[in-house]
């Protein structure tokens, strides 16, 4: 009886949350926010998409990578070059990006089989450091005249306008960028949900928890790990394609690729490793924390006056300290930790109600 009612309540709450999320993400943000904010939300979403893929690899499969910025960059450059020099539309580039980043993911995933844990993290770090040098060397800069080195130029405005087949409420480039990213994020999250609950998803977790034991029950460990790597690369690559629509250019420096890789990992962990929606929440926090700090941080603490340039310098410090504190309080992330707390509350509530009856 009570279990049924609890389930109905839970379903009802989930349904209400879903409706609210559809309204806020699908209508309110792109229609009522100004252009800059809409772009910022789109950025949060594509960081979230890349983090989702990384979560499949790190959270569910236990392989830590700090090089997924390279796959992100691969997607970014592929889309930008196809759109800029070959006059493709954004949506046409997506299948190419997906196939290419999956393929490169397989290629990298095979040698990654040999190395584990921190060594793997370091090999992927090499990937993040190498990628910008490769683009610097092999991508012609003259795709645009005005932009500096290691950038594939500003995309012409025409290509950023929403294509003709989109519904009429998508009018501006920022809305198109947002809705495209949102669609990809939704597809990504549904796919992740299905993957995790499939036979393959169980195999991922088994390999993470005990590789040798997983092998003894007939799981092809090598195949599982390589596919996990390639799938996460695919997510990162497609997220990189969205970057092109949002930032209107493609760029890679050794600092930016490394920072992106770290941002993905941070988004995974603060959202909640091995949770489906966690990385998306993490992506939103990573993107908006900087803005929140610069807007609402007090400009005087006691007698210390903080001007804007100091505030900019200080914002990574506040983010870093916040990150450390979060790890102390919720080591399993916001979604993971939140779920744990709610569950234990519910359990103690239920016990409080049923215990007099049972005694």
């Amino acid at each position, binding site marked *: 009886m009570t279990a049924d009612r609890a389930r109905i309540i839970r379903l009802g709450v989930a349904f209400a949350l879903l409706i609210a999320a559809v309204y806020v993400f699908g209508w309110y943000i792109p229609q009522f926010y100004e252009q800059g904010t809409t772009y910022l939300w789109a950025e949060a979403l594509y960081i979230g998409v890349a983090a989702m893929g990384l979560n499949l690899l790190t959270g569910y499969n236990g392989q830590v990578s700090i090089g997924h910025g390279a796959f992100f960059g691969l997607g970014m450059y592929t889309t930008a070059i196809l759109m800029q020099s070959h006059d493709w539309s954004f949506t046409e580039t997506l299948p190419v990006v997906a196939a290419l980043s999956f393929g490169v993911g397989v290629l990298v995933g095979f040698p990654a089989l040999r190395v584990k844990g921190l*060594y793997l993290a370091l090999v992927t*770090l090499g990937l993040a450091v190498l990628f910008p040098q490769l683009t610097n060397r092999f991508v012609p800069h003259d795709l645009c005249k005005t932009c500096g080195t290691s950038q594939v130029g500003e995309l012409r405005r025409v290509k950023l306008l929403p294509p003709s087949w989109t519904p009429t409420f998508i009018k501006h480039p920022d809305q198109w960028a947002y809705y495209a990213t949102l669609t990809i994020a939704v597809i990504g999250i549904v796919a992740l949900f299905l993957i995790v609950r499939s036979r393959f998803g169980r195999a991922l977790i088994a390999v993470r928890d005990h590789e040798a034991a997983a092998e003894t029950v007939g799981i092809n460990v090598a195949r599982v790990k390589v596919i996990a790597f390639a799938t996460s690369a695919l997510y990162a690559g497609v997220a990189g394609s969205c970057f092109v629509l949002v930032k209107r250019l493609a760029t890679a420096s050794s600092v930016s690729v490394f920072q992106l890789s770290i941002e993905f*990992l941070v988004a995974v962990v603060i959202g909640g490793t091995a949770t489906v929606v966690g990385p998306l929440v993490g992506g939103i926090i990573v993107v908006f924390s900087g803005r929140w700090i610069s807007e609402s941080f007090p400009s005087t603490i006691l007698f210390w006056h903080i001007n804007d340039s100091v505030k900019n*310098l200080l914002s990574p*410090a506040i*983010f*870093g300290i916040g990150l450390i504190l979060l790890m102390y309080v919720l080591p399993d992330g916001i979604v993971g930790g939140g779920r744990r707390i709610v569950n234990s509350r519910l359990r103690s509530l239920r016990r409080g109600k049923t215990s007099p009856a049972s005694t």
Partner: protein
Amino acid sequence: MALFLTQLMNGIGSGAVYASIALALVLVFRTTGILNFAQGEMALYSTYLVWFFTQRSVPVWIAILLAMIISFIGGAAIERILIRPVEQASPLVLVIVTIGMFLAINSIAQVQFGNDIKILPRAYPNKTWLPGGVQISSDTLVLVGVLLAECLILYLLLNRTRIGLAFRAVASNPESSRLVGVPVGRMLMLGWAMAAAIGALAGALVIAPVGLQGASMQEILVYSFAAAALGGFDSPLGAVVAGLIVGVAGTLTTQYLHAVHDIELVVPFGLILLVLLVRPSGLFGSRRVERV
């Protein structure tokens, strides 16, 4: 030939820096099992301290010594205050904590000391010798000398003293060491403290010729990570050898392989990938056997 030897010497010079930072990484990894992303930024902060002292007309070597002492204490404090509470957490959580430290220390240093480029006075005269056409700069000699001194001191400390014995016991098996009365916590602090002091010294020496700014240590950290992985994360000897290999490989490829112009990093990282494919725990790292 002279050109080759000159580049070899340059490589050894920069390799000595990577080796020092890699040594610091290994000390932290051996004791607390953490890949310390903040190692470079800790060294950066120490270097800012050196600059701060020299601004107040403290002689350079004494400034470096002071910075090393403060870093030693600071390293121990970081272990005790920031790392100890999450000691038992998953490796991923620890990685995130050190990334948080990385961001925090870097930006605090820039807020505290200003984000313009600082010029440090040299701790020794800048000279170049030419024995047989081979250029040897005083930078190379000092960096290599400091690396050798560090190795010697660490070797004596770890292998010839009771503290060193306790330290090695904790590194190999903390549980059993605690049972036989080794103060495990203090040894972990010692590992972090020594790493911070080594980083301070390496940072002060390597940054002096090029000027100090917020991003000074980041590239060095990447190379040092590479060196630590190549040598095997739990081997101090491996860190030193691999640091030198990475440094030499870097300068020699820049000089001789024009095909990899602008993509010099392909070589050290390609090398590392190859080595790790053959020996997954690095050149000198110990293998783990897993039981089911």
